[in-house]
Every structure is written in C-alpha cells, then in structure tokens.
C-alpha cells in the first residue's frame, strides 16, 4: 500500500521500513485474536442477561419462601391471626394485633415528629441555600445521620434517651418506664429524617424558576412563593419522600428493639412498652421451636415485606414520574 514518499512529511522515513513488512501478517494476527474474542463476547452478553434475570429470581424466591414458611400459621390461624389480641407462645396462642399496633404507632408517630424537620431541611437546601458552605455542611450532617448504624442509635438510646424520657415521665406523673413506644418513636424519627429530607431537597430544587419568578413579579414574599408555588409543585415528590421515610421506619429493627420494652401486650398509652413486628421477630425467632410459633413470626415477616415493598415501589414510581415531567 505505502509506495509513495510523502512530500509534506519529510520525516516519514519509515515508509521505507514498511515496504518489506507484510501487512497481511498483522491483519491475520488481529483476525485470529478476534475470532476468540467473538466467542468471549457471546458468553459475556449471555452472562449479563443471566445476572439481570437472577435479580428477578431472587426477589421471587424471597416472596415464595416467605409464603411457604408462613403456610402452617396461615392454615392454623387464618385471618384471626391479624386480629388476635393475645400473644402467648407458651400456651400456643398467637395474635399479631399488638405488633401491628406497635408497628403502626411507632412508625406514624416517628413520621409525624420527623416530617417538619425533613421539610425544613428540604426547603432550606432546595430554596434558601442550594449552594455554599452552609449547604454542604447540612448535607453532610444529613448523610451522617443516615450512615450511623441502627445498633448504635439503639445503644445510645438506651443509655442517654431512656433516662431522659424516664425523668420526663416522672415529672408528668406517668409510669416511668423510660423505654416504650414513645422513646422508640423518638429514635426512629431521628433516623428517618434524612430520607424525606434528601428527596425533598431534590424535588424542591427542580421547581422551575420561571414559576417562582412569575410569583415574585406579582409582589409575593419569599415565604408566600414557597407556600403557594414551590410546595404545591413539589407536592408529589415530597409525598414520595414521606413514603420512603415511612418504609424505612416500618422495617427498622435494632434501634427499636433496644428501647421499646419488648412487651407482647397491647400498649395502653404511648409511654408504655410495646413491640413491633420487626422487633418481635428479632427477639423470638431463635427461640421459636414450635412450627406454628415460627411460622407466625414468618407470617409477620411476610406482612412486613409486602407493606414495605409496596410503599417503596410506589414512592419510587412517583419520583420517576416527577422527574420525567
């Protein structure tokens, strides 16, 4: 191929070197190498498909295992299980109602406590200070709160929060357990703030400035713009953030089990000890020798699984729809 000396590039002296080199040799070498590569490529593509498929298989198997292991209790107890108010493994009485109540109360109470803080953070980071060192600081604080392992929250809760709550209870004339639904909700509230906060911040930032400028030009104050333009626009995203926080709260085990008191009785006040579905599983799983006993714990696990999955998937769908608009 290379028979001409180029006039423009006098240094191109290797043109001479290549006169003798057989170009077909290099091409043949590359072709042989590529033959092997084609087989590897096929295997690679199949492996990718297999792995993506295995995620689906894993999730289906999780569901399947939970159902299969819950069957003994479903068959023995049926729907009464959910309404059953007594949990007495010694006498083979299994009612999940106390744990349903415990889970719902702690989670919703935690949500109620945490949402004002989460939204304040979301608006602060999304509206007032989207950039700057103050914003970075708060962002890092939020990430750290989410990063602290739950067992450390529980540990700290037992030794720091519980005595404080006990003192408060004594002051107000309530039975000073210290531990209980209220304390568990407090700890949960701290733990779930980051979820609604960071998602909220993202959606608040996405509110188009054109909308806000329209309101400002009509003479609205900062707060009025936030209240009447930003929040309504970001409404669905903020709601998704709440769902995500809720999902986290429902599934939290360790911190809750360390401060909730682990009592199978239906709590008569929020300051009484109680149990959640997750904490009773953590506590009694290894002791459950009887089939129906174990199976009823699993059934609660199944319930927990279904509820948190539905909440998470709905939350993510809302986010996807919001970000695509």
């Amino acid at each position: 191929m290379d028979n001409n000396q180029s006039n423009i590039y006098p240094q191109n002296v290797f043109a001479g070197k290549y006169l003798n080199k057989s170009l077909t040799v290099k091409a043949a070498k590359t072709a042989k190498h590529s033959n092997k590569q084609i087989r590897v490529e096929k295997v690679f593509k199949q492996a990718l498909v297999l792995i993506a498929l295995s995620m689906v298989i894993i999730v289906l198997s999780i569901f399947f295992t939970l159902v299969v292991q819950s069957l003994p209790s479903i068959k023995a107890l049926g729907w009464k299980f959910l309404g059953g108010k007594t949990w007495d493994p010694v006498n083979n009485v299994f009612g999940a109602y106390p744990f349903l109540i415990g889970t719902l109360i702690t989670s919703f109470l935690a949500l109620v406590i945490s949402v004002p803080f989460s939204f304040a953070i979301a608006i602060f980071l999304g509206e007032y200070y989207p950039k700057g060192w103050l914003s970075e600081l708060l962002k890092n604080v939020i990430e750290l709160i989410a990063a602290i392992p739950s067992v450390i929250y529980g540990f700290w809760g037992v030794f720091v929060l519980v005595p404080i709550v006990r003192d408060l209870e004594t002051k107000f004339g309530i039975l000073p357990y210290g531990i209980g639904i209220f304390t568990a909700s407090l700890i949960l509230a701290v733990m779930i703030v980051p979820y609604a906060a960071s998602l909220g911040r993202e959606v608040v930032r996405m509110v188009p400035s054109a909308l806000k400028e329209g309101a400002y030009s009509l003479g609205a104050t900062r707060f009025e713009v936030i209240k009447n333009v930003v929040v309504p626009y970001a409404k669905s995203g903020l709601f998704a953030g709440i769902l995500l926080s809720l999902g986290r709260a429902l599934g939290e085990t360790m911190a809750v089990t360390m401060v909730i008191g682990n009592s199978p009785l239906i709590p008569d006040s929020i300051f009484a000890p109680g149990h959640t579905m997750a904490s009773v599983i953590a506590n009694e799983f290894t002791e459950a020798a009887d089939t129906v006993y174990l199976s009823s714990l699993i059934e609660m696990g199944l319930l927990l699984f279904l509820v948190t999955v539905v909440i998470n998937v709905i939350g993510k769908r809302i986010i996807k729809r919001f970000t695509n608009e």
Partner: protein
Amino acid sequence: MESSIVNSSGFNAWFGENHVVKNVNISIPKNNVVAVMGPSGCGKTTFLRCINRMHELIPGARSEGKMMLNNEDVYEMHPIFVRLKIGMVFQRPNPFPNLSIYDNVIAGYKLNGMKLPKAEKDEIVEKSLSRAALWKEVKDSLHKKGTFLSGGQQQRLCIARAIAMEPEVLLFDEPTSALDPISTSSIEELFHELKKNYTLIIVTHNMQQAARVSDKTAFFYVGELVEYDDTKLMFTNPKDVRTQNYITGRFS
C-alpha cells in the same frame, strides 16, 4: 478502469417503520475520495453507517440488500471483522478520555487485549500519527491525555486511531462540521494524502467541501441515490434536476 472496493446493490435501511435508505446501488473505486452529500434527513449518514454495520446497533434498525467489500458481503461477516477492515471517524472527535495519546492510537490493539512488543507499538503510533499529520505536534507529549488537544487535533487523533488498524476503507461522518475553519482545511488537506493508502468515503453537508476534496460525489435525496458522478462533472453539469436545485442552493 479502477477496481471497486465497496459496492452496494439494492440496499435499503429502516429505522423501525421509517424507510430511510431506498434501493441504493453504488460502486466506490479504490483509493478514491468519494463525497456523499445531500440535505439533512436524506439518509446519507444512515447509509454510511450501514457500510461498517454501525447502523444495526440502534434498537429497531434494520437493513436489506447487498453490501460488498472486495467481493465479500459485509452482512455475512461478523461485524467485528467488518470494522477491522473499515474504519470510521465521527462527527464529534471522540478520543478515549481515560487514555493517553499514545494509548489512544493503539487502542484498537491494546483494548482488544492484543499484546504487541513495544517496538512494534511505537512504530504503529508514529506511523499512524504521521499519516494523520499529527506526529510533529504531539510526539513530545504522547503520555498526555487526548482530551487536552484542540478540536482539530483531536479529530486527527481519531483519524490516527482508525488508521492504526490498517483498514482498507475509511468512513467519515461529517468530520469537520464541529471544527473551526483552520482545522477544517488542515483535515481536508489530509484527505488528499490519505487517499494514497486508503479509500475514503466522506459524508458532508457542506457542498463546497464535497467539491474541494472529492474525486467522485454521490447526491442523496429523501433516501435515494439521485446522482453519482465524477465531482467535476456533477458540479458543472448535473444530470438530475434535483441535483441541480441542490447545487444552486434552491434547498439545502
């Protein structure tokens, strides 16, 4: 009579239901520069990308017909082999940002896992960069990343990278549309040199460029190959009225 290196017969291509290349028959002679021009959406880029089988990478894309490289149907070979023989330079220069200039040039070997002795690699790099008229400018900074070069230099780096694979044909998809006029003219000069060793097919939306650099020109319009002739003849005496209208600027 020059020998034909690439020729297509009855070639069609679709994007889903969209018939974008209609029954194209063309014969590209060896060591020529062939310009492919036409208004936007006429199917010229799609046709180009069918030659080295890049078109089929898009979901929903398909093609029919014969596309021959040296009497072998490109659609009966494995695409990897096709692309080893037919190199491509894209509209926006796309050197690999994580590799040095040196590694960019031999990327076709190195990233493929082929181990070449250092002397051979050095030869390939120097030869390819020289043929792309870039050697003098970068020979002292071969270890630097390719993204620090100017647009024109990056494009020449991409040309060197394609040349390093010793293809027979080089495809150019509007190679200078993202470059400034000075870089554009240096690359146009390059075409003149490159055709000594390779066959060049250049899609361009710039009529003047087609007139400047090519030996033959093909005019595409709404997916059809309307006219294909020696460049001088086409621009002075176009045979089809559509070609005439395009050249005189009735539409662009």
